[in-house]
């Protein structure tokens, strides 16, 4: 079986410390797959391996039938995988609009001379970038008045949605969301849930790291559970919820909030 994204025996060690070991699973086109697990289980490390922030020490990442581990980060973005970060990483002094425009980089081509001479093709391309940017900001629900503000001045929840817009600007086929509702209230969480479903309906496959179990159960088609850098379970949300191994490892057998 080989899906859109196929992880084959991924291992990642920092020095002697193993952060990921023998991680294998597939993501099928159109799915929303949740990754859950206690803090330090290796979820974000997996995202960093897939997006080549650092290379895996074992195994390979296959995307759309081709091995992508070993490619530089921008090449992976160009092939169609983009991400958001757990600790939001916007270009904080750029405007909201410019942040999304940067995301268009790999789908556009004007170089130094076309940019300086403002050729007709370059102006048309810039217009296209601005148009697409406005559409994406509409999609994530950032209103017109916010768009010329520095990204760093937006409220927290808006920054998270802006990061999603920037990631979508590169026209990904697979979007990696790292805790998109962390620190949000219920209403904001609902908005992000609807946004994630909207993005799925546009044909984007989503891999989602999230601690909010209600959201994971509701949004995901399938859930993968990590603990201590290993995959301990995989299946539909309902099954995962009742898996005794998951309950013991992750839910802590009634010891309260998993990520407390």
């Amino acid at each position, binding site marked *: 079986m080989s899906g859109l994204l196929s992880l084959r025996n991924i291992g990642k060690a920092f020095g002697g410390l193993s952060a990921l070991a023998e991680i294998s699973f597939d993501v099928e086109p159109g799915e929303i797959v949740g990754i859950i697990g206690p803090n330090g289980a290796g979820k974000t490390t997996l995202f960093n391996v897939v*997006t080549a*922030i650092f290379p895996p020490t074992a195994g390979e990442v296959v995307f759309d039938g081709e091995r992508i581990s070993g490619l*530089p*980060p*921008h*090449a992976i*973005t*160009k092939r169609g995988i*983009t*991400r958001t*970060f757990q600790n939001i*990483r*916007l*270009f*904080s*002094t*750029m405007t909201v609009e*410019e942040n999304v*425009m*940067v*995301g268009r*980089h*790999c*789908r*556009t081509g*004007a*170089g*130094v001379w*076309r*940019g*300086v001479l*403002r050729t007709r093709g*370059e102006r048309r*391309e*810039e217009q296209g*970038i601005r148009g697409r940017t406005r559409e994406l900001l509409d999609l994530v629900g950032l209103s017109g008045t916010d768009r010329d503000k520095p990204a760093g001045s937006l409220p927290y929840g808006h920054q998270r949605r802006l990061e999603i817009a*920037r*990631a979508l*600007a*590169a026209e990904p086929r697979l979007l990696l969301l790292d805790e998109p509702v962390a620190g949000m209230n219920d209403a904001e969480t609902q908005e992000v849930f609807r946004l994630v479903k909207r993005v799925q309906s546009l044909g984007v496959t989503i891999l989602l790291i999230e601690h909010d179990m209600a959201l994971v159960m509701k949004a995901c088609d399938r859930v993968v559970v990590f603990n201590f850098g290993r995959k301990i379970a995989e299946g539909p949300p309902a099954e995962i919820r009742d898996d005794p191994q998951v309950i013991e490892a992750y839910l802590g057998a009634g010891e309260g909030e998993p990520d407390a």
Partner: protein
Amino acid sequence: MEWLNPYHLQVASFVLINAILGVSIYVTLSTGQLSLGNAGFMSIGAYTTALLSTQHQLPIPVGILAGSLLAGTAGILVGIPSLRLSGVYLAIATLGFGEVLRAVLINWESLTGGAVGIPAIPQMGRVILVWARDRGFTPESLGLQSNQFISLTVFLILLLGTILTVAFFLRLSRSRVGRAYAAIRLDESAAAAAGIPITYYKVLAFSQGALLSGFAGALFAHTTSFVSPGDFTYHRAVEILVFAVFGGSEHIFGPVFGAAFLTVVPEALRSISEYRYILYGILLVLMMVFRPQGVIDPALLRRFRRSGKGAPA
């Protein structure tokens, strides 16, 4: 035409050369790379055109072009290994490059004339005056003395070069490439994740800065008609850095303003110009404390623009 004083024109010419140098460090900084090698790249441009025009009698524009391109190429060669370094380590490595280059200029006497340097480089203004005289033109017909004409011509050529340089990089900063530069400066990992090839743009910006330094150096050679290794010391590298730190490095007008201010003020206060470096030191400390982003920053420019629009006509 008494007011057209060759001395003032010469100061103005140095303002323009320094403005180009200020832009050269700004371009590299706009991707978050601090280069102190720009005095070295400047010397490549200056010596290349000096040698081509004195020993091979090539026309000045050819020398300037060759000097700039050679400096830009050197920028690529230095920029690629420098990718492994950042921040203060890159600054030290590039400073080392400049000093090594200067040692080469001093010791390769057969080519560079050693510590004495290269004299009698064709001066742009004089060459144009001779060219014009051959065609029956005299500066007197404009009411100018010869030396006024020469200084004025040099000034106008430098002004054109500076305007083109600033316009080029102002436009670049508002294009797709400029956004990529800014993204890399603000957050390299996020920029890479957004699809920007970091290596390519860092080397590009580094070599653009080197090319501009070489351009400024070549113009310098044909303005003063004399170059020596003493023109491209560590002090020059720091001076260029101070243009950006004082003027501001977040907008292209910052280093241009810094270059203008820091060239004119020491001239105006000639009596204390001996103490220039002390003044620089104090200035840097004060800037760090009170205005770390430099005099000119985007917020200040926005305020100017707004008050310009708001004011009644």
